[in-house]
Every structure is written in structure tokens, then in C-alpha cells.
């Protein structure tokens, strides 16, 4: 089982956090801080596994992380997951993000948190790995994106009744007076 997936930057600012067990917001922040503390002090060329911090499960769990440019991707898993498998999964995750955002960078994650969550949801569900095949993940993400887009178009092509237009006009006017005041 995967207990939590965290993304934070080199300064420990959270960029995405997904906990598959419930913690209070404060504990979540503490976990992120503790994990950052553990991970950030490690050199570049040491192994990517760590015994878990005290807050999240203790020694039963492992932290498996990768460091890409300004971001740390950390998976907290228990003993049923294969360490190397999870490392591969992180790679798949990052590559998928890269495909979906076209050259992903930290800013993409900051501004599109919901999208990152949606991509992750196609890979990991409730702490269990759902899909590891990147093209399958991208297909599903894109199909859902398309659906969203078509719904947005529906929004625009609404037919207006006469009364609606009048109301619309009135409101515009009201706003204008508010603005000029």
C-alpha cells in the first residue's frame, strides 16, 4: 500500500500532497516538514530509500523518493510494495506529467494542482497502484479533458431570451456605475 504521495520543492514548500490515510491538516503539514527534513539533507548520489519518519507509520514504512531539478517526489509505502517498482512508478508519473503539461516545470504544478491530482488519480487509487502504462494513463486523462472542454463550450452557446438580455444589460450598467463611483 502507498500511504502518501508528496511533492515539495527544494525549500520544502508543498506542491502536491495526497494522503491515503486520514490525518488532520496540522499533522499533514508536520509530515511534509519532517519528510522534507529527512530527504533534503541527503546527498545527490545516495540511495533513494529511507526508513520512514516517526509521524507516518514509523519503521514499518519506507520513503522512496526522487529529486528532479527543483522538486522532490516522495512516496511513502509499506512493505508490500517493491522499492524498485515504486521508483519506476515515480518515473512514470513524472514522464506523464511531462507529456500532459508539455515540458513540465514547478510552475505548472503550482498553477494546476487539480490537474496533477487528476493525473495521479489515474495511476494510484486509494493507495493502490491502478495503472502503470503511461499511454493508457494519458489516454484516460485526455479523454476526460476533452469532456471538460465540450462542457465548457456548452456553457458559451446558451440561447438568450429577450428578458435575459435586458437583465444582462441592466447589470452591466450597474457595475459600470459602481466602477465609476
Amino acid at each position, binding site marked *: *500500500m502507498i500511504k502518501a504521495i508528496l511533492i515539495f520543492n527544494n525549500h520544502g514548500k*508543498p506542491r502536491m500532497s*495526497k494522503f491515503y490515510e*486520514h490525518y*488532520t*491538516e*496540522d499533522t*499533514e*503539514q508536520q509530515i511534509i516538514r519532517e519528510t522534507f527534513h529527512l530527504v533534503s539533507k541527503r*546527498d545527490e*548520489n*545516495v*540511495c*533513494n*530509500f*529511507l*526508513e520512514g519518519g516517526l509521524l507516518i507509520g514509523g519503521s514499518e514504512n519506507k520513503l522512496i523518493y526522487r529529486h528532479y531539478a527543483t522538486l522532490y517526489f516522495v512516496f511513502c509505502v509499506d512493505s*508490500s510494495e*517493491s*522499492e*524498485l*517498482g515504486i*521508483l*519506476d512508478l515515480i518515473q512514470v508519473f513524472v514522464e506523464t506529467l511531462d507529456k500532459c503539461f508539455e515540458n513540465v516545470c514547478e510552475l505548472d504544478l*503550482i*498553477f494546476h*494542482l*487539480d490537474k496533477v*491530482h*487528476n493525473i495521479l*488519480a489515474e495511476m494510484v*487509487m*486509494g*493507495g*493502490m*497502484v*491502478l*495503472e*502503470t*502504462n503511461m499511454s*493508457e494513463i494519458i489516454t*484516460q486523462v485526455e*479523454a*476526460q479533458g476533452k*469532456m*471538460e472542454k465540450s*462542457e*465548457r463550450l456548452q*456553457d458559451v452557446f*446558451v*440561447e*438568450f*431570451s429577450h*428578458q*435575459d438580455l435586458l*437583465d*444582462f444589460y441592466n*447589470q*452591466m450598467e450597474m*457595475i459600470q456605475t459602481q466602477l465609476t463611483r
Partner: protein
Amino acid sequence: MALKIVKGSIDRMFDKNLQDLVRGIRNHKEDEAKYISTCIDEIKQELKQDNIAVKANAVCKLTYLQMLGYDVSWAAFNIVEVMSSSKFTYKRIGYLAASQCFHEGTDVIMLTTNQIRKDLSSPNQYDTGVALTGLSCFVTPDLARDLANDIMTLMSHTKPYIRKKAVLIMYKVFLKYPESLRPAFPRLKEKLEDPDPGVQSAAVNVICELARRNPKNYLSLAPLFFKLMTSSTNNWVLIKIIKLFGALTPLEPRLGKKLIEPLTNLIHSTSAMSLLYECVNTVIAVLISLSSGMPNHSASIQLCVQKLRILIEDSDQNLKYLGLLAMSKILKTHPKSVQSHKDLILQCLDDKDESIRLRALDLLYGMVSKKNLMEIVKKLMLHVDKAEGTTYRDELLTKIIDICSQSNYQYITNFEWYISILVELTRLEGTRHGHLIASQMLDVAIRVKAIRGFAVAQMATLLDNAHLLTGNTQRNGICEVLYAAAWICGEFSEHLEDPMQTLEAMLRPKVATLPGHIQAVYVQNAAKLFATVLQKHEGETDSQAAQETSQLLIDRLPLFVQSANLEVQERASCILQLVKYIQKLQQKNVEVAEEVTALFAGELNPVAPKAQKKVPIPEGLDLDAWINEPPSESESEDEKPKVVFAKEEPKHYRSRHTEVDEKELARRREVRKQEQANNPFYIKASPSSQKVYDAPGVEHIPVVQIDLSVPLKVPGMPMSDQYLKLEEERRQKEKAERKKKEKKKKREKRGKGRKADSGPESEEDITPAHQVDIVTEEMPENALPSDDDDKDPNDPHKALDIDLDKPLADSEKLPVRTHRPEVLKSPAEDRDSKSVPQETKKKSSKEKKEKKKDKEKDRKRSKEEKKKKKKHKEVEEELLESQPEEAVQSEETKEAAAPPTSTSAEASDLDFWLSSAPVPPAAAQEVTAPSSAAAVDTSSAAAPESEPDEPKDTEPEDTKSSKHKKKKQKKEKEEKEKKKKKRHHHHHHHGDAGGEDSVQNGTVEEEEPLPPMSNYSLLAENSYIKMVYDIQGNHQDESKVVVSVIFENKSDSFLKSMEFNVLDSLNSKLQRPEGAGPHDGLTVPFQLPPGVSNEARFVFSVQSIVMPQKLKGTLTFIVKSDESSTHEKLDFKLHFTCTSYLITTPCYSDAYAKLLESGDLKGSSLRLEGINMPFHHLLARICFHHHFSVVERIDSCASMYSRSIQGHHVCLLVKTSDQTVSIDAKCDEPSLLGNVLDEIKQTFSKC
């Protein structure tokens, strides 16, 4: 409508969206909190609007703020609103927010049930997908119960995308609602062979996760997984399966043997490191489970070690780490194969990566031998000096101690060396492990008698230089060793060269700055030293010096009398008075030394850590009972139990055996030694109690600055390094000597006290420097053998420990379409809940039929399904008004009972699959026939009224399949498919027959005035014999029940020499004639000609009657026909229900009322839905099946009574209205009552 949207778009122009929010936060770096709080205010405004788009935008922003650590639970209701939007865009935002912040405590969650159900059945697969994803994060027990059936239906969805999500989420459902596991499991298993690899992988994932917690329940799936392992190419799936096998092998060594070959093949062939690593891991697990070190497996170990070496030598730190991790697993069982790689591991100790160093340290633990211990420890000591971080250094320290103390100090040849290592470790700065060193010092000094002299000398020096240890407040952890030092010097003071000097050191004023518990030990041991000094002086008749010593104590002790610590104070004042008295005597020239030493006389023995727990509670002692009446509530809080005494550990050790005579003592020691020969205990001086200390005014101690870069050389303290050289020399000398003596005779090797020395051969040559007697620990006589490795009772997985091979009982159906069953009261709703499961089951059986059709029809099928769904709804509505159909229900019971027959048959298949030895066909038939018969029996026992052709049906099929089996593994696949088809056929058959059957079996008969009832239920049956049984309590004896068994000969042959045997449990035992062993069977006192039946009675004794119980048993008999006679056997399970312990006892209504008034009885209640039988039938059933009697009956209400054989009163109040029966019950034994009620419920669920 349109207007709102327009309005919304205008508003949105002025709203911040998520991007604006993020940008804003980034622009307000200096006053982020303030900015966010204004944003939250805005969001609150937005949430108040009607426009769903605005709300969704607000919720989206909240999700971001939640990540930053803001509590957004106040918006839970709005999140639910957004979730229920019809637009996918908003729905997704809502579910995402819910998955981030909902949890079991969120109360609005109960509002979501219907919405989620709607989304799950949405025609849009992404609506369903989003709902499943969200649900996986916040599923609660209520949601799980209410939605389990919906999700189960989704497991057979046409789209693999939905199927895989539905399969995966089932794990979460099982966790929250364990009752769903058994009904859902067959379908889950089916999904292991799903055509879509994603679904397959999800199913593997779920079953692996389940099996990891309760592996034994999943052993029967091993053949299936084995097939998957040899056929799958998906590494992810392979890894999961291989990991699962790793968990299963410890339970079934035969499985391990079967696995070795394919795994080694994989190891050789795969290029994926992750897979290779997991294979190696599982091979190791297999080897551990075999562990007998079979010769042909040494190759596998070699292969593993070889591969791991490659991993460790790899430049990739990850592989290195994992290699070391796996190596440490091999180490436990095959230390020798690892030891040859010592060089590599020592090399890893120098790695720059701390994780790797720690793993290497773990390995070292198992690599030490007598030969290399000193060398390795020396290396570690160097690391200790070099290590920068305190955590790593502390880790090193504990490892050094672990390594040295392992297996009862097995590898230490020179304890002087070990003591000096410990003393060297005391110079560590800022370690937390002072108590660990202290407990080692104590342990060694107590248990190794030969070393006491040396240890005492070392400790005396330590005490003398105590200021070096306590100088810095930061290094307080280490002053714990003074505790040990003081105690050792005091206890073994006869070894001290200059006790006077030590006494003086212990009474220095500075001691008063030490933690209280250490001071207490100082004071107490000063008294012991005083005794020794006195004796010495009196021996030399130096009364002057003796008096000076007394004076010294009288001068110094008052300091301790003033101590804030109660313990110190008390001891000091006691001893001060004692010394004053002694001084008086001394002045009168009385010889007192003898008497003073007598105060501290007595040999000390170490006590095993568990000893206290193992003392059996004497009979008749109830520890929970009050000795006096409980005190009144007003007892003040501040009188907490004092911990003071618990702190002084060693004092309590002192068990004085002076009153026990020496012979008895020696005898006990002998017994103990034998007992412990196979069981080396470690003494753990439970240092936890020493951790607690308070150091009043430590800040005021004058700090002594020490330059620590120069290792301290305390005069008179030998350095451990010297021992290395000395040891070398000694060994050389010994070798030379031995060479001389070699021709003469083999000399004795080791110290007598050592036991179970399993070091490598070459080490046998090394003799310890001292004749060492390691004292073993004391255990109480007749100690309880219980070892408590209890599981955590709070572990949610414990609830999932469910036998999956048992047939499904009717009561286990998944609840459907009920919000909360307790709300259900109106009969209409009630009917609704009953009818839907039938409907869905019906549907699933249809689906199964459909599967048989070709895949080409898939497209058609989806259309059909849609239609069917429509129909389904219509039917549902119809059913709302109509009565439940009996026919459907009876069909369904069979549906439920059928799959388990095949699974239990599979269990016996497992045995077959595992035993690779060829079996002659006839024998095979014999082996499988009884077991399959037994399997069938259990299923038919669950539904005894079902027609008997079912077992006949399965039996030949099974034997046939087993014939197929033994041919070859290759055929397995084919054969499985066949079997599957057959199984389908089975369903089919029952589905068709269902309509007709309902006329024949019990359901129709029930319409008659009073149905004939029989308490005899089927025990077991095969083609020769049928056994039915009934259990009755015995009026005379409160611990006996009588089991009446009717044997019916079904064959054409003569049955004789029947022997009835039962495997006794602790609670229930078959009464056997005197002189018979506990495993002997009872001869049935008759023979059976063809077609004849007869009854025999067996008496069982039971102790506790509050729980139902099952006993396994066997009936062996000889079948004699004209030509031949064969031995046959039939397995069965005797089910002692709690009902069978009840005796029908009449009770008068006034006595009954009194009983209820007494208040001794505890209540419980039960509600039965959908019972449409006359009330008197109902009562008759309860009376007959559950041994009750009716006390009083008024209209649709009755009170009933029964008594258990042990005199528990059970009272029932049965009320009925509109098909709902409520039973309020009272009994003086709640668990008995609970079980009886369950059984009543079961009786009525069957009809």
C-alpha cells in the same frame, strides 16, 4: 436557467480562479496568512451563491488551501453540493475536494450515499470513475455497507476502465465492511483471469494485499497464482505475485519446493532489476521455510548470494542498499554463505551513504564469530570516533552492544576486553544510551562470576573519575553508567582493593548533583561498602580506622538526608541512624562487622524478564475482585501510585533463598538449566525505569572543560586495543601448546557453563580466556508456557481473517438499497430490501450465462445490458408493491451454496497440486473422494433441506478432474477451463431447476398448519453412509452434552467395525471409556446391514458453553460386500451450537417476572425482517429448535424461557407486527445470549 448562467459568467469575471489565487499568494509573500484569510472570506461569499460554477471554483481554491494546511472542513456541505452537480467538470472538482478532506468523522458523508450510487450507475464511465476514485479515499463503514453491492456489480462492467477501479476499491470496502469479503470473493477471484491486463493486475493487487495480512486463507489460490506467474509478462503483476508467494511459503513448505525452479529461471532470465530482486527475496523466503538445508538447495542459496553480491557491488546506491537488505535475510538461516562476503560488507561500512552503513551494520551482527569479534568491534570503535551525527553514533553504540551480547555472549572469549570496551563507550559525548551500557555492565558483572574482580576494579576507577562523566550537563545520558558502577562496587565489594577510597568517592558532595535514582543507589551501596570496610578493619583489629569510617559516613550522609528526592532521603536517614548506632557500639568496643555484613548477605540471581508474568495465578484467586469495599469517589487525585519503588530495580532482584534448603535449590537449578537449554534468554535489566530522573540544579555544577580530541587515558584503565594484542598472543600460545598435546589426547574445549555453541568448526579451537560461568536466569516454578505474541487488537485487518472456503450462508448476502437498516420499519421498504438482492443475483447469473457466448456479441451485450437495466428498474418498482417470490429465493440460496463447493474441492486440489509424486489412479480416487465428500457435506450442512443430488453431482466430477490432474502440469490450464465450464454448467442447472425445486423442498410445506420439524441435521455423507446428528444438554450434569448420531447405510454392502472419533479441543472432549487414550476412537456398538439405520449416543464434556464450537472428527468403517471388504473413512464436523447447551425448562410467570426484576440479567435484542409465518409457527420453531418454553402469550407477543446446562437463565420477549419480529432478550451471560440470538436469526433466515 440561462439567466443564471449569464449571471454566473459575469460574476466569474470578478472572481478569482485558482490561478489568480496562487498568483496572489505568490505576490503576498510577506503577509501570506493575511492574504489567505481575505481569500477565505471571499470564498465563503462565493459559496453562498446559487451558481454551481461559482461554487465549484470556490471549492477548487479550497483544495489548494487545504494542501497549504488550512482546515476546510467547514465547507464540507458545499463540497457535497458540487459533487452532485450534473456536469463532469464540477463533479470532478467536488470529488477531488472530498477525497482530500473527508474522513470518517465528516458527518455530511452520510448525505452522499445516494449521490454516489447514482454516479456509480451513470452511463458516463468517467462519472463512475471519478466517484470510485473519490470513494476510495473517504469510504466509511456505512458507505461500504450501503454501496458494496453496487460496486460488486461494477466489477463485471463492460468497460475495463471501470472494472479495474471497482476491483481495486473492493479492498477498501472489505477493510471497512468485512462482511462483504465472503460474498464478493468469488467474483474477485474470477477477475484474476480477466482478459484485460489492467483488471487482472488490480485483482492481483487486492488479493495480495488481503493475503499479506491473513495468508492462510488464501493458500488455496496458490495454483492459480502459480499459473499467472508462469504466464504473465507484466512485471508489476509478477512482482506482486512473487511477493505474495513469499508470504505464503512459510505456511506451506511444499509450495516453496514447487516455486524454486520457476523462480531461479526468472532470476536467470529477467533483465528487470526490480523483478530480479523480488525473486531473490522470495527464494530466500522459501529457503527459510524449508530451512532444513537440503543439499540440492545450496545451489539456490549460492545463486542468491551471488546475485546479491552483484547488486551490492553495483555503483547504483539503490541496488547496493537493497542487496544488503536481502543479504540480511539470508543471514538469519544461512550465515555461512554470507560470512564469506565479509570483506564486501566491511567495505560498505565506509560508504558515504548513511542508510547503506546502517544496513551493513545490521549484517555485521550476524557475521561475527569468536575469531573476528574483537577485530570487527575495533573497526566499529574507530567509526564511533569518526562519526559526526549523534544518531548514527548512537546506532553504532547499540550495534556494538548487540553484537557483543548476542546469544548470551556467545562470541566473547575475553570478558575483560568487553568490560573495557564498555568503559571506553562511556566516554561518548551526548549519547542517549547510557542506560544501555549500564545494563550491560550490570549483566556481565552479575552473570560472569570470573570477571567480577576486574569489573569492580574498573567500576571503582569510573567512580573515582565520575567528574569526567558528569562534568557536562549535555552528557547527562552517560551518567547512568554511574548507577551500574556504584551498584557493582557495592554488591561485589569483597573484590575491591581499596574499598575505603571508593567509599569516599561515593560520598563526595558532588554526588548530590546526580539524578535522584542514582544517588539512591550511591547511598545504599555506600552502606554495603561500609560493611566491607568495617569487616576489613575489624579483621585487622584496627578499631581506630573503623571508627573513622563511621565518622565519615556520619559527616557525609546528612547531605543526602536533605535531598529533595524521597527515595534518597529515606535511605540516607535510615543508614545514618544505623551508622550512628554502630558508632555507639564501636565506642563500647563491641564487634559489629559480622552483624552489619549480615544485612547484605545473600547470593543474587538474575531473573528472566518474563518471569513475573509467568507466575501462574493460584487457584481461587481473583485479581479483579475487591479486597475491601471500593473506596468512595471522593478519593483525591493527587495520591497517585508512587513510582518511587519501581525505580530501584536491582533491589528487587535480590531474591533470597535462604529459607529454601540447598538440595531443593540445586534440583530446581537443574530443571531450569534443562528447560533453558533450547531457549537462551537474555537478561534485560529493563532500563526503562532508569530513564526517569530529575536533576535539580544541574546548571550550577562547575563545568570541567575537557579536551575530547585526545582520547582519555584514565590511569589504571587498560585500553581495549591492548586486549587485541594480548588475545592474539594468547591464541598463538594456545595453538602451540595444542600442537604439542595433539598427539596425546584431545583436550576439553570450552567452559562448562556455555551451552549451545554453534559457531563454525574452526572456532571450536578458541578457548575463552576465563573459565566463564554465565549464570542463567530464574523462572518461577510451574511457569506458564504461554508466549504472548498477540496481534494488535485494533488492526483493521484482523477483521478480514475470514475463511473463504466455507460455504456462503444466506445471512451473508450483501445488503442492498438500504440506507441504514435500523431505519427500516415499514413493511413496504422491507420488501424492497429483500427483493433487490434476488434481482441482482438473478442478473448476475444471467450475466454468467452470457459470458458463454462469443465475444463478438460484446457490442450487442452492452446494449442489452442497458435495456436490462431499464427493465431492472421497472421490475424493481413492481416489486415494491408485490410480495417477494419464494421461487427466486430458493434459487438464490443454491446459487450461494454452489460456488463454495467448488472452492473447497479446490482446497483438496491444492494438496494434489502440491504433491508432485505420482499417485496410482485408484489411490488417487480414494484420497480425493472422502475429502471432496466432506467438502460437499459442509455445504449441504449449511442448507440441509436442499436436495441430495447435489453432492452426487459433484463427486464424480471431482474425481474425474483429479484424474486429469496427475497427468501433468501442462494440462492444468485446459483442465481449469473445463472445470470452469462445468461450474458454469452447475449454475445453469440450478438456475433452471430452481423453479421446480421450490415445489418439492421445504418452502411450500411451511404453509401447512404446523410444519414437521426435525432437529437432526446432516453430519456427513458419502456413497456408503449418511450420518445425521442432534445435540442435547444433560439435565443431571452441567458439563455434559449428549450427541445422538443416526447412521444410515446407503450402500448394498454390510458396514461393520465402525469407529467414531473426534479431535478434542480444550473446551470440549469426547467421553471415552477408562483406559482409553485421548486420541482413541469409540466403537459404534452395532453393525449396519444394507439400507438399515440405527442411532448411537456419545457423551461430550464441555467447559465453557458461551461460545459455539466445531469439532473435527472421522468415522472409519469396513465395507463388506460379497467379494471384498475395504476400509473407508468419512470426515465430519460436529457443530456445537450454543442452542444445544440450552435445556427446555418450564417457568412460571411470577418466577419469570421476579427473574426479570432482579436486574442481574443483561439485555440484547434482535430484529427479524420479512418473516411471513403465523406467530404460533414462529414460537413453535423457537421452542423446538432452540429449546425454549413459552411462559406467557398475549396476542402477538410472547415471553419465553430457557436454561443452559450450567444454569444461565435466558429470557426472550418475542413480538411481531407486519412480518417484522423483534426479540428482546435477557441473560446473565451476554456472550451466550449473543450467540443464541445469532442462531435464532440463522434459523429464520433459512426459511
